[in-house]
């Protein structure tokens, strides 16, 4: 059996690899551009409006965003092979549209080069420069021709007219229907990122250039504390109530707990959190708890004072974390206890005169706690992911807010690191749950044919 668990550990590697591929692909398809977000954050009104393109190019270069995404790409033969080098999505979509229309990207590239040469010669704010600019930004052949037709005869000469006439040719449109695989080698974003991860370097955040590992290290403890406290308290409440509700099935305890916890389950977290802040923290009603942060105890405070301050600040967030999980835990414990109580050995124990307490806790609980092992195993990633709603409302600088900010800013290194961390913990949680099963019930064994037996 030990071998089985070791094999499971080794299977992590290909699983994680597939997860990274999946996550990387999702990020590329999710839209948004971290360079644009950075530009928006750093926007200064300036004279030189071509600065935006320069800044985006420089930003993409310094963050390796000007490299191809993966080792290879599948494209039409007519497509531009260096599409990833265009700084603006507008330029990329124009390149794609014109390449498709003409069937030959190289023709468009030559036309653009010629236009840029002429623009450098022309004075700005002339009609000719405007028309040339229109050609350079046109997304269709019709638009190019319409602008070209307005140029004077002298402006059309020296090869420009030939290039525009070539646009009409249909020779190359067959290339639109021929797929091609373009290999980019190891100089691609995925490879660079993977290499860094394997060397233990999670990269720097795009938002403030701080190392991702440091930002995670700062945010993780508070999220862990809140999650663990919430989980422990939820277990302490749900387990005894679940067991007694099962024993006194359909009694007042069972009915009240079921109704109450499912009502809790139905309440959205953001609404409950806001109500708690307004009713228990604001100056209008009860002012029992502080409303934001985790507390700022003075340096000279002793341990008990610090505990009081932190507890006061975390009471409401912890409640918001745990109330939803109560119903889930309660129902599982109740159901599994009910099943156990129907077993013959329980009847025998009762007949022998054992106390209810002993029957429920010493005998039945051990078996009925199996679902708990699964729940705890799957709770592992949830412990670190936090809840951005709760952290947002209570101003707690935890993993939830970190993830939210990373997504909104398209902070790829942070997003990939957090998702990878979550994936590792999920796999580890499942592995741990299986291991604990085998310890909890000696009848559980794995045979050579890898079938899972119980009893």
């Amino acid at each position, binding site marked *: 059996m030990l071998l089985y668990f070791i094999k499971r550990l080794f299977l992590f590697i290909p699983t994680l690899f597939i997860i990274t591929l999946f996550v990387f692909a999702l990020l590329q398809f999710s839209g948004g551009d971290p360079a644009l977000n950075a530009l928006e954050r750093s926007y200064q009104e300036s004279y030189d409006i071509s600065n935006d393109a320069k800044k985006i190019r420089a930003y993409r270069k310094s963050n390796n965003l000007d490299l191809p995404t993966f080792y290879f790409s599948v494209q039409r033969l007519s497509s531009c092979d260096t599409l990833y080098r265009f700084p603006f999505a*507008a330029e990329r979509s124009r390149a794609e549209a014109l390449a498709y229309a003409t069937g030959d990207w190289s023709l468009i590239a030559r036309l653009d080069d010629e236009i840029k040469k002429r623009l450098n010669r022309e004075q700005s704010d002339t009609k000719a420069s405007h028309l040339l600019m229109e050609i350079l930004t046109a997304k269709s052949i019709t638009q190019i021709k319409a602008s070209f037709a307005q140029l004077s005869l002298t402006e059309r000469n020296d090869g420009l007219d030939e290039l525009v006439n070539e646009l009409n040719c249909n020779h190359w449109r067959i290339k639109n229907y021929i797929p091609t695989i373009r290999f980019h080698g190891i100089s691609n974003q995925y490879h660079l990122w993977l290499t860094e991860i394997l060397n233990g370097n999670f990269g720097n955040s795009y938002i403030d250039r701080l190392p991702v590992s440091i930002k995670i290290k700062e945010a993780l403890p508070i999220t862990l504390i809140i999650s663990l406290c919430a989980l422990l308290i939820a277990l302490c409440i749900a387990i005894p109530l679940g067991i007694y509700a099962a024993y006194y099935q359909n009694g007042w305890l069972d009915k009240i707990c079921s109704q109450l916890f499912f009502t809790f389950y139905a309440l959205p977290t953001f609404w409950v959190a806001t109500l708690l802040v307004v009713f228990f923290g604001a100056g209008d009603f009860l002012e029992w708890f502080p409303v934001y942060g985790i507390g700022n105890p003075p340096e000279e405070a002793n341990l008990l004072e610090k505990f009081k301050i932190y507890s006061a600040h975390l009471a409401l967030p912890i409640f918001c974390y745990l109330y939803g999980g109560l119903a889930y835990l309660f129902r599982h414990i109740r159901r599994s206890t009910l099943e156990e109580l129907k077993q013959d050995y329980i009847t025998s124990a009762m007949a022998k005169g054992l106390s209810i307490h002993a029957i429920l806790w010493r005998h039945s609980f051990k078996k009925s706690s199996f679902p708990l092992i699964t729940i705890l195993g799957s709770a592992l990633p949830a412990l670190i992911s936090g809840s951005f709603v709760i952290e947002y409302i209570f101003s707690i600088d935890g993993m939830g807010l970190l993830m939210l900010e990373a997504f909104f800013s398209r902070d790829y290194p942070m997003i990939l690191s957090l998702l990878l961390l979550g994936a590792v913990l999920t796999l580890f949680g499942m592995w741990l749950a299986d291991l604990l099963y085998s310890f909890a019930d000696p009848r559980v064994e794995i045979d050579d044919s890898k079938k899972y037996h119980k009893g």
Partner: protein
Amino acid sequence: MQSNQRSFTHLFRALLLMLIFINLIACIPESQDDKSNLLNKIIMREAADAKSLHPLTVRDAVGFKVALFMYQSLVNIDYESQSLVGVVAKGEPQIDSLPKQIYKLTYQLRPEAQFDNGRQIEAADILFSLKYYLAPFTFNRDNRDYYQFIDSVKINKNNSTAISFYTHQLNSRTKFISGDFFILPYESFDPNRILSNYSISDLKQLVKTDSLPNLLQLEQHTDSSIKNASIQDLKGSGPYSLLNWEKGKRIQLEKKSNWWASNLNEQSVYFQNKANQLQIEIIPDETTALSALKSGDIDVLQGLSPKNYEKLQSDSSRFLTYEMEKRGYQYIGFNMNHPILQEKELRKAIAYICPLKIIVDQVYYGKASISSVPYVSATTSNEDQYAHNLQKAKNLLESIDWKDVDNDGLLEKEINGELVELELEFLYNTSNDSRAAIGMILKQEAKKVGIKINVQSVEWSIYLERLRNGNTTLFYYGAQTAPLPPDFSSLFHSKSAFGGRNFAQYQSIQADSLIAIINKNISVDKRDKIVKAFYGLIQDELPYYFMLTPYELIATSKKVKGLRIYSDRPYYWASELYK
């Protein structure tokens, strides 16, 4: 029966334990109120933390707000007179025209200006600071672009309080921007005096530091300082020093005891330091921030929504409220490359269906003002040229052949041989309730004239991408502007159209020419005339329908005194407040 009793006893014990625990922790420590009164500490709320407080990389609004208390520039805009006021310099630069179209801007420094170590701020410090902003560090790109226009600098050896900048690019904003960088002590930022080995032109020509070990060392030192947010490195000549920065939680500033300008009899905001301590608490959620204000945990709450502002306004026994029209604009933009929106009559018709007064009353609770131009001045008319008029909208649409052919209440027109319905998408960014409401109002009004508007929200990153990509129809956007001479380049110039901030993709030779003239260094009267002509053009062509500018709404506890609200960021100066 016995077992029932036992379980009830267990339950009772558990509940009792919980109550005791809650009481233990619910005895919350005294609020910060009393302590902050004694310390004359002002506690403010911000929705997000500063990204950086280092002078080279401070970009975001909160970072700038804090940096303005820590560092000073040569000059800055006076919030009341809207003219330049000298901060480290005595006043505006003297501008001299030299041969070969070179301009010289000379600043005279205040002889009393000092750093914290008592060293007088001299011309050499200005030169060092400018070099620092032009250093070829990878994270310094924005600053290098911004100050590229300065060709060289000269210091008079006989007069250490005078410095001259030379440039061949003089325009309407040069004198504002030339003195708009923080003056920094080399002891903190370049202790080994590495930059003294390079001239301004050397630094401008360098692209990176890789080949220069000493510059590379300085870059690494600066990078480390930025990432670690080392408080001891972030020194300036401002009225406050950084006491503490707990990332994501709070920023604390302390008044300097021997600040050089303490005894200056200057009323400008840049010379105030009434509060002993300034503390910024990071509270993203407005409801939580409101609760914190009510419970006395914070003193100043800025950027309130109109609804919450009204509630606080009605509680005048506990709170003071302030409102001011912000300098800026909000508009509905039209994608001029969209086949339907290419006719200006249609754009005008959409402007006519927009009920601005209703939007101001219902969406902003009256806390916004109608503003039909992007830069408002005393001489330009701010009247809405397209006051709500559905009949005019219908007439315009009819004049360009939009008719309800199939009697379904929706207008159609033949475009390129195809019958096209008048259906448009109104795009805005998610989590913006006011824009959502404006979209719905517009949709309802548009229906009355036969236009179908689909209101669509997208996440911010996608929204930015679609705007820059020109993948829009109608869109809503807004921005704050600075109290500087207007520069319409980014919004209207054709060079900004493709991937830039000219989201309407507006391209007009006439507009480009007018912008070029406006940006020149011409007299205020002449500029106003050209701006008026420019506004006439854009209000006729209507690439954007400028609508309104919302008010800045601030509330404070009654203990806080001295607040003056301004129309420019940061809208109030915490250094003017006291308890």
